[in-house]
């Protein structure tokens, strides 16, 4: 693609758009040992990582697609046509803000995306300007001994901590896509919080979205040492332009004795994206891992954040919201593995299906027989907007032993036409009525998101609902 011919593809209905840019580094299509060598060379990675990637590649190639339980749509991913590493390096994009179409600008406006972020998201700025803000945060937490940097830098600069936990919570061969990520990863965050340090402000994945290609195969590792506390937030509700249709991240959390980690995600993918993510946390004695997850958009999302409660009295929690728009499939859920006495887990999942959208909940709760005093609570509620919308629930709960308890509730509801008429009778348009109902449905969960996210989420739901009626 020549400089003068940069193009912008827009799905005008959704406000999603794609913007072609030039890349300084491009590993070409397909994934093989050569691609891995290219990535390692460009990134100047140590040999153990090169080996790690190559071993992962083998596993990826060996493993079958999980289509015996998952969507057959996975078969439409053509791995040989995918670019596994792209980086703009230090180049500046050649697009200007004036060239960004009006409707895209309007979408940003309506979502209330800050000025600087808009430019980045529209692809007219390679560096996110809050890079400066990030440096400040980094410096501030650095004083407390917190390490906060990109994983690529971390594996070089802090190999002693990095290697100890990297790939330990989610082994390479956990599933086909964790293997893929382990072979091709780039981007993502590394955080280490020393014992007893409580990070007061949530850390945000700002730098994630700079030069390196949008975290197509992001790799994040967060370690909270004994008694430490940290909250991490990633994503934003703006529809992202994307250069790739396959996104496969791996996120590993380690909460050592008495530590607390909260991981908040809000993602809104354009509807051509396969988003296949593996997220898992390890909670040691008295530790707590909490995932707060909001998935919007994409063609197919498969994501089941998990917690392995390895120490006594450890706690795991997954709070998730999924919005499956027309033609989209949100296949999400949670995994709770109880591996010590008196561990407790809580899953609250709410999904909304719009148009031909489909939301699937998959849960896995394991409490083995020999454990005592373990508890799980699972609630999953689905809301169907149109008659063509669909939802399925597959809770796999295996609770053994007499001293353990499990509570499971599931519901499927519909916004009834009477309810809509009632709201219209008060003066709200059908679309306003619909979004108010949907916001009401997720309200108790949205409250758990940080303020700025919950405001954006509300606006996003409004926007989605406008398209669902009439």
């Amino acid at each position, binding site marked *: 693609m020549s400089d003068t011919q940069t193009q912008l593809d827009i799905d005008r209905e959704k406000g999603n758009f794609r913007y072609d840019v030039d890349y300084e580094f491009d590993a070409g299509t397909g994934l093989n040992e050569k691609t891995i060598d290219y990535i390692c060379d460009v990134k100047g990675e140590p040999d153990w990582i090169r080996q790690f990637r190559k071993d992962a590649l083998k596993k990826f190639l060996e493993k079958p697609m999980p289509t015996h339980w998952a969507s057959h749509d996975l078969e439409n991913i053509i791995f040989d046509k995918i670019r596994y590493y792209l980086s703009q390096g230090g180049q500046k994009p050649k697009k200007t803000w004036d060239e960004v179409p009006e409707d895209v600008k309007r979408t940003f406006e309506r979502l209330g995306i800050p000025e600087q972020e808009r430019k980045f998201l529209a692809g007219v700025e390679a560096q996110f300007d809050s890079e400066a803000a990030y440096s400040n945060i980094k410096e501030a937490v650095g004083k407390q001994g917190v390490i906060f940097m990109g994983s690529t830098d971390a594996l070089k600069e802090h190999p002693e901590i990095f290697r100890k936990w990297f790939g330990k919570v989610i082994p390479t061969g956990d599933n086909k896509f964790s293997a893929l990520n382990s072979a091709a990863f780039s981007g993502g965050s590394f955080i280490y919080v020393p014992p007893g340090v409580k990070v007061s402000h949530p850390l945000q994945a700002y730098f994630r979205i700079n030069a390196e290609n949008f975290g197509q195969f992001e790799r994040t590792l967060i370690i909270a040492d004994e008694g430490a506390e940290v909250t991490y937030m990633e994503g934003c509700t703006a529809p992202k332009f994307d250069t790739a249709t396959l996104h496969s991240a791996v996120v590993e959390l380690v909460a050592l004795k008495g530590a607390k980690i909260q991981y908040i995600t809000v993602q809104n993918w354009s509807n051509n994206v396969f988003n296949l993510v593996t997220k898992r946390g390890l909670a040691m004695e008295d530790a707590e891992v909490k995932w707060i997850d909001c998935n919007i958009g994409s063609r197919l999302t498969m994501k089941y954040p998990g917690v392995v409660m390895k120490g006594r009295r450890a706690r795991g929690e997954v709070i998730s919201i999924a919005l499956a728009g027309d033609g989209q499939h949100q296949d999400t859920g949670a995994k709770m593995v109880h591996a010590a006495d008196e561990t407790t887990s809580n899953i609250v999942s709410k999904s909304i299906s719009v148009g031909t959208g489909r939301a699937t909940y998959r849960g896995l709760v394991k409490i083995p027989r020999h454990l005592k005093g373990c508890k799980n609570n699972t609630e999953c509620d689905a809301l169907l907007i149109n008659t063509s919308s669909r939802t399925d629930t597959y809770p796999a709960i295996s609770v053994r032993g007499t001293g353990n308890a499990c509570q499971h509730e599931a519901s499927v509801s519909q916004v009834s036409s009477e309810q809509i008429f*009632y709201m*219209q009778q*008060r*003066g709200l348009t059908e679309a306003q009525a619909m979004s*108010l*109902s949907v*916001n009401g449905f997720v309200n108790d969960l949205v409250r758990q998101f940080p303020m700025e996210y919950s405001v954006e989420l509300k606006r996003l739901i409004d926007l989605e609902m406008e398209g669902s009626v009439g």
Partner: protein
Amino acid sequence: MKHLKIDNLHVSIGDREILRGLSLDLPTGQVHAIMGPNGSGKSTLAKVIAGHPDYTVTSGDILFDGESILEMEPDARARKGIFLAFQYPSEIPGVTIANFLRAALQARLPEGEELEATEYYAKLYEKMDLLEMPRTFTSRAVNEGFSGGEKKRCEILQMAMLQPTFALLDETDSGLDIDALKIVSHGVNSLRGPETGMLVITHYQRLLNYIVPDFVHVMVNGRIVESGTKELALKLEAEGYDWATEPEAEAVGA
């Protein structure tokens, strides 16, 4: 003065005719009561005026100040000033009364104009006090888990906030205890005035002791068969509807 005029209205659901040539003229400044046996079509009338999509108007018209509103969406009719206090109000899970009413009022403002939050809450609390509703109500989801009486009170709160030109109250008295009936009636009466017209549907003469109507209509089988002053309600209370369902009585409305 404004008029809500129902003109020889025929309404069907599927191929069943429910309203069979009903006419009624409601000007602002007046309160009309409608009484009639179960299934005679009272709620249907109220919902058709509000624009419920299930019903088909096969002939006749509904005129708001001389202008037909049949083609208007329910929300446009509402913003024009038609309010329906439902016989069976819907629940809206997760949406608080405060947020719901705020959205409803916001929907009445011109684009770009924001509802003033402090004024809004001042008004909300004033109306809640009038209806003797505890403040904690504002943070409860609309009608969710409300008792029958609470739902009715909540309908009147909404009416008080939205200040409609024409209010249709469909059995607002059912489910209210004696004290609540007085409070709600007091609330309704405070909204009476030259700017407002009310259509009060009820089965009980008792309500009309509190909300004294200017006219009472008897509805049987989709038509108004008798109209009169409030004394008519007393006659109904004493004699029931039998006399009105006699063939010759039916002819009165035809």
